[in-house]
């Protein structure tokens, strides 16, 4: 599409979907503003009470004081931070459900798409020109929202848990990258469901099912698979914490015994004194782990995969529209 076409389609989309164009950023940015304001208040409290060290990712040493500080700071019921964190993750889903699916499906259902298609615009331009501004707007809004959520949860997690662990789910999901990645995927799946089904309500149901499958696969297969890639290995003690990587900053993927010949042995020996047994057989105990600096790359890889799936969903939508342009 030429720059002129993009500009024309963007204007047309603005005239057609003005409410959604304003509504989508509002849905993301208003909660972001609330989280930001809350974060400012909490950080002020931490600063006044000299608890700024709590914001360091591996500050397990300040654990108890941070927890007590947060408990005093948050005058809310205990589960609130995690409840809010889950609600934060629900927002991309809601955006896909209530903005993404009807965005195209409603035009197809009402027949209004024929207006655009007979005004010098091809179905593909209509689809991409309608979807492009939406997904761009939603992704940018979600990234800003993710930044606010990440910033807010740095303190909020002290109330929800007892220590900061950089590999906890919130560190992976409540980031600008993840929220933008999930938002792009939800919008693309919403587009695909809308184009294929062409009825708003059934498309909404299909969207929930499809997205649910994607979330399930992401959590049960993709994430464990990614966490197993590029691990570092280290010989550690089987009985003490000596040599073990920091539990606050690393993610343990697996452990194993190793024979003097370098052969890996899984399982745990059925003996009382494992250390003595290891020494007797000249076995060593190893751990494979993800170092702290891998977190950002794994997060980017996961979100890259989400966006790739989203790109396939968009391509599938374009293809479907080409073979079944209109009913």
């Amino acid at each position: 599409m030429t720059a002129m076409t993009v500009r024309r389609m963007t204007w047309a989309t603005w005239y057609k979907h003005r409410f959604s164009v304003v509504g989508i950023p509002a849905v993301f940015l208003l909660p972001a503003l609330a989280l930001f304001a809350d974060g400012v208040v909490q950080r002020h409290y931490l600063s006044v009470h000299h608890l700024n060290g709590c914001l360091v990712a591996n500050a397990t040493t300040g654990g108890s004081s941070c927890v007590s500080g947060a408990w005093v700071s948050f005058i809310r019921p205990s589960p609130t931070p995690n409840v809010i964190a889950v609600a934060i993750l629900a927002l991309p889903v809601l955006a896909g459900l209530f903005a993404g699916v009807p965005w195209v499906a409603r035009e197809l259902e009402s027949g209004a798409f024929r207006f655009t298609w007979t005004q010098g615009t091809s179905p593909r331009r209509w689809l991409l020109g309608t979807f492009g501004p939406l997904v761009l707007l939603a992704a940018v809004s979600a990234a800003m929202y993710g930044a606010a959520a990440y910033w807010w949860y740095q303190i909020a997690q002290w109330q929800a848990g007892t220590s900061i662990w950089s590999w906890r789910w919130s560190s992976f999901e409540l980031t600008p990258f993840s929220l933008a990645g999930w938002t792009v995927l939800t919008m693309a799946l919403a587009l695909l469901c809308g184009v294929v089904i062409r009825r708003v309500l059934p498309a909404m149901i299909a969207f929930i099912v499809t997205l649910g499958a994607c979330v399930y696969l992401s959590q049960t297969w993709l994430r464990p698979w990614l966490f197993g890639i590029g691990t570092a290995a280290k010989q550690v003690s089987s009985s003490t914490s000596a040599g073990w990587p920091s539990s606050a900053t690393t993610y343990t993927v697996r452990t194993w015994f190793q024979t003097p010949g370098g052969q890996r042995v899984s399982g745990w020996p059925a003996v009382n004194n494992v250390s003595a047994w290891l020494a007797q057989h000249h076995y060593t105990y190893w751990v494979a782990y993800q170092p702290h600096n891998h977190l950002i790359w794994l997060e980017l890889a996961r979100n890259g995969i989400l966006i790739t799936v989203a790109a396939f969903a968009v391509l599938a939508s374009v293809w479907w529209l080409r073979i079944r342009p209109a009913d």
Partner: protein
Amino acid sequence: MRTGVGKTTLLRILAGLATPTTGTATILGAAPGSPQARATVSAMDQTVPLYRHLRVGDQLAAARALNEQWDADLAKQRLSALGMTTSARVGKLSGGQQAQLALTMALARRPRLLLLDEPLASLDPLARQDVLGWLMTCVAEDSLSVVFSSHIIAELEQIASYLVVLSAGQIQVAATVDSLLDTHLALTGPAAGVDDLYNQVEVVTAQRAGRQALVLARTGAAPPGWAARPVTMEELVLGYLREPAARGAGESRLEIVR
């Protein structure tokens, strides 16, 4: 002209809204749906596709944004003549007003060809006359060609210069209206003579009423014993529709496949 014969499918294929499962179509020398065709062809079907949640002004602005060529003055003058305000919600307009709005936007693109599928179905008789008059003006002043599909033959009689009759997805008749009217006659004569008439002229359809018969024949002169008079377009079209197997003038290469 009957329902379900494929005229909407044909017009949607020509407008680039649908693709034929077999065969090809060409419109103004280009493939339907190609950039060249989209730039020069406007279409409006009986569903009157509009964004009904928009206001008239926004609907016009969206149309203007979508088109490289847009005659804002034409749209403004037409809406003004119709007494339509830009602040009105499209969905709140009457069916006739919506059709007029859609037609205005189809013409404001300054197309070379306008495809209209039952465009007047929702209009009252006065509005129909108004739209037909406006269309004729556009045809005369802007060299616009219009493909007009309708069940109402009287409408076609006013404006059509070329007639295509579709039946069961096939072209039954395709020729200029003048040539069709010149080459067909309505014959009146004895019902007993109808069988012999088939050997003398090309009979399109024959209706017997008691001893008399009314025959639509493709002929330039009346056979002996039969009284002839010129046919009207309505008689011509209905005659062919009664006999789907009958083939009139013109080419019949087109087959519409859903």
